[in-house]
């Protein structure tokens, strides 16, 4: 039922300014894209594991490790087939996983509203930052309505339990149409609901969330920058 990835904790990392968190996300993304050999990526992954433990968000990793494992295997196989370079394939697979892991940690420690707030502080107009984070907001309700649709179909005799993996996956495909249709229909209702709450009325919008850029933010960014250049120097 905990559909959002956000975990309400009071750790050092949770308390960082949303802008700091967004910067860290971008820095790690760029860093991972700069490397194309396995070793530095493994090092970064270890560091991410530390961050994840420190922010007490390992439990989210458990939720998606299967997905990561499948992606990892497929990436290795595909790259090896096409480039015949196992080392590179391994790096690509590790990189993909590390990228997902970075995003996962970010979403574990950042409320969606914080994300919007952060983008706003970085100078994006509210409408834009809201639209960008809207996708994240809608994922949980999308999943929920998908679950209910599946329940509704199962309760009317749709058999999703028998058959091998491929057969079962095939049975899920017709489910996608009603689920997508429902979300599109809900989109118009959402636009109405937003305006009913005054969305768009004032140019300048106030914010209930209020964060100060503090010493911790400064120190964190500084540390990460140092590590960054250290890594780039070595590899």
């Amino acid at each position, binding site marked *: 039922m*905990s559909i959002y990835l956000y975990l309400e904790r009071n750790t050092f990392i949770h308390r960082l300014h949303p802008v700091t968190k967004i910067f860290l996300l971008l820095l790690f993304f760029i860093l991972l894209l700069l490397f194309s050999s396995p070793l530095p990526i493994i090092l970064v992954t270890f560091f991410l594991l530390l961050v994840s433990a420190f922010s007490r968000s390992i439990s989210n990793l458990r939720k998606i490790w299967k997905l990561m494992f499948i992606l990892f295997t497929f990436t290795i196989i595909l790259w090896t087939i096409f480039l015949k370079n196992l080392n590179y394939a391994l790096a690509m697979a590790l990189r993909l996983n590390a990228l997902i892991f970075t995003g996962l940690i970010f979403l574990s420690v950042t409320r969606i509203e914080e994300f919007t707030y952060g983008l706003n502080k970085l100078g994006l107009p509210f409408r834009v930052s809201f639209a960008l984070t809207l996708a994240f907001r809608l994922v949980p309700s999308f999943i*929920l309505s998908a679950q209910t649709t599946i329940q*509704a179909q199962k*309760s009317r005799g749709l058999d999703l339990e028998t058959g091998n993996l491929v057969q079962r996956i095939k049975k899920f495909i017709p489910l996608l149409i009603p689920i997508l249709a429902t979300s599109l229909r809900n989109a118009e209702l959402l636009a109405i609901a937003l305006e009913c709450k005054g969305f768009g009325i004032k140019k300048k919008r106030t914010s209930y969330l209020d964060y100060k850029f503090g010493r911790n933010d400064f120190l964190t960014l500084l540390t990460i920058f140092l590590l960054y250049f250290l890594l780039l120097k070595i590899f």
Partner: protein
Amino acid sequence: MHLLEIKDLSFTYQNSSSPAVKKINFSVKENEFIILMGKSGAGKSTLAKCLTSIIPQFQKGNYSGKITIENQEIKNVPVYEIAQKIGLLLQDFEVQLFSTNVILEIAFGLENFSLARAEMEKRISETLKTVGLENYLNRDPLTLSGGEKQRLALASILALKPKILILDEPTTDLDPIGKKEIFALLKNLTKQGLTIIVIDHETDEILNADQIIIFNASEIVSSGNVEQLISQSEFLEKNGIRPAAILTLFQKLNLLTQKNIPKTVNDACHLLVENSYQTSEEKYTLLTKEEKKEKNLLFQIKNLEFTYPNVPAGQILKGLNFEIYAGEFLAIVGVNGSGKTTFIKHLNRLFTPTKGEIIYQNKNLKNYKIAELAKDIGYVFQNPDNQIFATTVKEEIVFGLKNLSFPHEEIEKGVKEVLKTVNLEGCKDKDPFILTKGEKQRLSVASVLVTQPKIIILDEPTTGLDYLELRSLMNLLKELNQKGHTIIMVTHTMWLVAEYAKRAIVLKEGEIVFNGSVRQLFSEKNIENWGLALPPLIELSQMFGKTLLSVDEFLFCLNKSTDPTV
């Protein structure tokens, strides 16, 4: 000066041949409390959308006439501008929630209006207290129960402090006490200067209103003060509104005159006594004797526990123990969030117990496949929008038949019959999305009934239905029950429980606090502590020392005393 004026308003939706509202005229003064009633599909929700300029800003069509708020015409004003003056609680209140916790949900609108943070804090705590959600500050709205979501959506609109508040069926998912509280709250808000327009089917709360407007087939057929209207039972019934049971009783006893309208249960009691009516002990004993108990065990629920993983206070069911018998008409009642929906979703294995087990026909439920259970058990979901997924009405109904491999001829016949039963004959090829909420609800019932399951589970079937639709649905269920089908119904509507169900289970905070016959339930003194309310008719019968569940039972037991000294 009128605050709100509607002149000759007509509107026809695009792609529709007949108008949704036609020549609407009325005006609203400040601090008025208005109730809009009428059959489902009569145009009430369309009017609400016109009043907030959602029509024609979002939904296009042929618009004529004029709506003015404080002398400003609103047709071309954006919805967000109107939002400063008029707050709207949508019928689909779930889409009004999109934040990650309760506080931020309410803050969202306040931020749009550029309020200072201190003012936001104040309004958030005020409104949450008003709707009774002050202990839910950090909860994720998606994890709230249906009724709690409805309260939160209301709070998020109230916090904007509009002048006029429009509520489109604001209590469909609320428990009886919650309903009373909301109406008391609304009444109170009019005293603080708010003007309120409520669209509702609930007649018990009708006396709170200053003005009642009744719709039929897109037009206003009657408007006037409450006293004038409530005594006209037949007129109300014809327009899809449930007449108050006590008034129906009085009418059948020929006691109802323009001067003699019993406004309270006490009034009614006095009037009955004045006319020397009393209740017969013998006949009452006959009634209570008639109640037979079903004996064939269907479900055995043993120490059933359910806990949501990784959610604080995630334990929803705390060890349920009881039996369900074949051929029963069972009502499951209790306050919002007491675990009713969670429980019934276990019966067809949509949910799996965290602890404990359910035995279905001598075999552990977990040894059945869900698809296998679907043959025996039909399940009507709480919100029809979640259940309906096909692109035409017919496809929606056929889905179950096809899954259960019914032969082709039977499918055609079944569809035809069930559409007739739920009165949707003309809609066979329509897209379910354009149906009204009441029509959607009937469609979802039809799509379940069509396979004629032995057991029918309904989660709050009253949502969006008007009185006539509700009666025909309930009579249908009664008929099926008499044919041997087991009916299990979760509901907040107490008069339905009284008139139709035979046994009731009351849940409170995930535990069973009552398990017995419906008559026993309504004789209990604790009923209000369980979040339930006594229907006025039953309250009246208790003044005579009995628990009579319907007008018919009342008439059966009443005797006119010949001895004038009694």
